[in-house]
């Protein structure tokens, strides 16, 4: 940004964007678009400009535009980010590569099916409300009784996309799911006897290879890897106690 807070001089930036439309752009390919980026432009702004002025068929997800909803997570230059808060010129590359999140099945262009990610949360049965954003008067979609949230986690899916293990073991519970499980343990809503066996399995806590990328890319500072390691520590204590016939 210039000193007076107004947009500074624009610079042309090439965007290399992964495209896929079932039956139309199939197999996937990369399309390039040139956008004049001003110093305040984010990747999401650029996508919106491309969609508005160059290709109205470009598909991507977004909602809040301020890193709160987690909807616009994607890979930019190979790293998982929230596109709404990723400044184009600060990336410092003449070509910006934009791809959908990894691991999750591709629906079209930059949108992926988040179902598998949501399923990672289910085993913990975690019911935590981020009270600062919870509005009891808010209208709820049909069939939804209440909103639940895993504290700071904005459920963007960046962690499982960056995790080397989820990329090779689709059954791995994943950083977000295991971090949620740890929080459920600490919060004490669920019995440890139920939660420990969930984590102590082939695709559970021990499957992590400590690549630490989940924590590195998390836009919400949840620190999934740190929580996962804390879960392991608890798990180790549980296993030792169980070995000696003590209470979980």
């Amino acid at each position, binding site marked *: 940004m210039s000193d007076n807070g107004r947009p500074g001089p624009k610079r042309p930036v090439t965007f290399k964007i992964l495209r896929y439309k079932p039956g139309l752009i199939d197999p996937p390919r990369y399309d390039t678009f040139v956008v004049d980026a001003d110093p305040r432009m984010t990747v999401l702004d650029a996508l919106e400009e491309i969609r508005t002025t160059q290709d109205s068929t470009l598909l991507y997800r977004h909602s809040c535009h301020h890193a709160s909803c987690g909807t616009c997570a994607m890979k930019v230059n190979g790293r998982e980010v929230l596109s709404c808060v990723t400044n184009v010129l600060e990336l410092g590359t003449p070509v910006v590569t934009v791809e959908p999140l*990894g691991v999750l099945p591709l629906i079209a262009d930059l949108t992926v099916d988040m179902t598998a990610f949501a399923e990672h949360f289910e085993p913990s049965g975690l019911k935590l409300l981020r009270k600062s954003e919870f509005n009891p008067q808010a209208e709820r979609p049909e069939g939804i009784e209440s909103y639940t949230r895993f504290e700071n986690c904005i459920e963007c899916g960046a962690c499982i996309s960056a*995790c*080397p293990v989820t990329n090779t073991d689709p059954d791995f519970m994943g950083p977000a799911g295991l971090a949620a499980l740890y929080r459920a343990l600490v919060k004490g809503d669920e019995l440890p006897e139920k939660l420990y066996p969930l984590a102590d399995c082939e695709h559970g806590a021990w499957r992590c*290879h400590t690549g630490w990328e989940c924590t590195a890319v998390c836009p919400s500072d949840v620190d999934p*890897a*740190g929580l996962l*390691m804390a879960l392991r520590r608890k798990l*180790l204590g549980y296993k030792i106690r169980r070995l000696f016939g003590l209470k979980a």
Partner: protein
Amino acid sequence: MTRKPIQHESLWRRILRAWFDPRGRDTGLVAFALNRITGIGLVIYLILHLIVLSSLTGGEAGWESFLQLARSPLFFLFDVALFGALLYHALNGIRVTLIGVGIGARQQKTLFYALMLVGVLLLVYAVWLMATVA
């Protein structure tokens, strides 16, 4: 007809990118990738080592020809690389073991750099020993 959603990369490309592509990644993935590379390297070395040892069954002549090869400068570089890989794998193994059970997890980056410094110092000392004493 419902179309099955796809992955935009093949499994192998995805594995290679997720495990070994350091672009846009942090220390953790570099440590993870090097651990796998050195691990695979050490397994290959172990197999080669057993093959070379089996030449002993062919008598003194076979063993002597290997010793001549072992004294070459190229083999010296191989020894340095081998010891470097061994040091990396062992020291990072200590780090992974500690943070893997929640000890020093928040300091995993510092732990990595500290152990790598120890590794470099040990490697320099080992190279000096190999060059002067052996």
